[in-house]
């Protein structure tokens, strides 16, 4: 599904590689967690996978489409949920969702139905005509997520989707993401929350200093390094590397 081969990324004003000899295979219908400390290269990897920036060298193939030649096709089948609340604060939730649906060419009638349905699922239908700047962090996160899935992407990239939200909103978000996963959507996700990743991900890759250290199922990984939980495994692995 996603084949990352010998990826290197060096920013112009940097002496070190943000990604170095990074290879990874993410299979269909996984919830794949990219875990690592700050500066590990998670956001750079997400930016490359979504086509926002180009790698210095290496190759990315998504659903048999090569990113170098088929970027626009890839962008149609992926959804992005950035770490920021990537919404227009002075527009209502409905206006935001309509705009982001339209840029993916979702037909108007289908889009309106989807907005209604999806906002009901995440408990936001009552607030559709309220402006984003009147929302709490959790409400913004939910609309932020919906803006990335209106066009029913095959693969969803989530960058720290639960940062700054209350526990109720976090549970609601993760439950809904599980539901999407059960419907067949593959999810690539970055997080600092190891406990959240342990429960949520079917597969995790631990990254440090631009390199992939290990890829495994969370439980298997904990067992491999003889740790108590994923957090301990993560600390041990990143310390060693």
């Amino acid at each position, binding site marked *: 599904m996603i084949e990352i081969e010998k990826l290197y990324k060096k*920013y*112009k*004003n940097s002496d070190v590689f943000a990604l170095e000899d990074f290879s990874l295979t993410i299979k269909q219908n996984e919830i794949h967690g990219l875990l690592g400390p700050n500066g590990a290269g998670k956001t750079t990897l997400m930016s490359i996978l*979504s*086509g*926002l*920036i*180009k790698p210095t060298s290496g190759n990315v193939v998504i659903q048999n489409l090569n990113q170098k030649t088929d970027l*626009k*096709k890839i*962008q*149609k089948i*992926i959804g*992005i949920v*950035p*770490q*920021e*609340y*990537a*919404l*227009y*604060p*002075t*527009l209502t939730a409905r*206006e935001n969702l*309509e*705009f*982001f649906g*339209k*840029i*993916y*060419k979702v037909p108007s009638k289908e889009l309106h139905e989807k907005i209604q349905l999806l906002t009901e699922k995440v408990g936001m239908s009552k607030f559709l005509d309220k*402006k984003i700047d009147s929302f709490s962090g959790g409400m913004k996160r939910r609309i932020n997520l919906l*803006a*990335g899935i209106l066009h029913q992407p095959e693969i969803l990239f989530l960058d720290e989707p639960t940062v700054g939200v209350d526990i109720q909103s976090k549970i609601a978000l993760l439950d809904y993401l599980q539901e999407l996963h059960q419907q067949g959507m593959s999810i690539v996700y970055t997080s600092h929350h190891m406990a959240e990743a342990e429960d949520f991900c079917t597969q995790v890759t631990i990254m440090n200093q631009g390199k992939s250290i290990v890829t495994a199922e969370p439980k298997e990984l904990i067992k491999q390094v003889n740790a108590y939980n994923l957090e301990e495994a993560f600390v041990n692995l990143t310390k060693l590397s």
Partner: protein
Amino acid sequence: MLSQLLACIKKEILLLIRDIGGLVILFIMPLILVITVTKIQKSTYDSFAEASIPVLFIDHDQDSISAIVKKHISHSGNLKIVTELNGKKLTEDELKTEVFKGKYQVGIVIPAKLSKDLNYKINQNVEKILNEFAFDSTQVKYNQQVNPKTIKLYFDPATSLAFKENVSNVLDKLITDTENKSIYKAFQQEMGSNDLGFQNEKFIHFQEIVPEDSKSVLKPNVTQHNVPAWTLFAIFFIVVPLSINIVKEKSLGTHIRLLTSPMPYSVQIIGKTITYLIISLLQFTMILCVAKLVFPLIDLPGFKTDGILFSIYGLTIFASLAAIGLGLLIGAIAKTQEQSAPFGATLVVILAAIGGVWIPVFAMSDFMQHFAKISPMNWALDGYYSLILRNQSFLQIVPNIILLTLFYIITLFAAIYYDKFRRED
């Protein structure tokens, strides 16, 4: 692609409508600006023409020349002779103090024996000339040395250069005319005749010819000068909300969503261009309506657009494109709103200053005139003046339009390239 473009335009319009500060910058401030500046300039001209400016006057001559100067000043209509202060005759020290304190704009001191010495000098010269022709070389009546005379002019240091020049020129002309008449008179006297048939009336007259079209004579007035200049200034101010809009998209993260969507980047740019072009044309229409309909109600000349309406709208489209290109570039370069807003506003003020919005380009130094040529505001302003005041056709301003279009294209590509470069940086 069309549905994506329409969605972008709708989004941009909604963002603008909800931004009250932006709307004030775009629509209210330009109106206030155009009305205020035109009204101030009109009232300045009017007050200069109507008001009676007091002129401190000391007459040590007490003869024909000072009488002529006094008479001319008294009859000028906008200058009034003042020879006494607090009931006492004015002294030169008092005159100097009063003028340099700014209580009076100008003071004139006519030296003693000016008329007498001038006439003596003229007679001396005439006598010399006639002696050269040997009409009568034996009699030399005017053989004394006469020193040159100085009429002292005192100006308030805060007085404008134009006023100073004007007063000096008027006095210079008066003295020259008087001198000429005295020369003729001296010839008549020396040749022993009371009437040699010299005609003292002006032989050369001045007539201002203004551009004409088949229907009417286009007389430049304060409205015809100010409306295009300040409308252009307002149009270029869209640089501020447009660059803020782009910076906000970057800081909010919506930029990431847009760049990672299948929608071509060009659609986003076209969406912004169309929206801000509509805004510019609305601004222009609003100012035009006010200048045509409201100006006459507030004692200002109405703006005339007879036969040039389509041409000035055509030029406005290209001027707006240049402004949009600049806004896109500043938006791409700036990292925060704190950078884009003051930088954009200051840049527009600089472009307006060097572009001739405040001071005509011809009045600038050679060095600054070269700079004026690189200001898109100058290209647009020159185009407006060509259409409105010089009675030229749209075809004649095509070079201006080409420059404005090139400016849009260059700034647009620079913005796209810089944005790409920055992301990879």
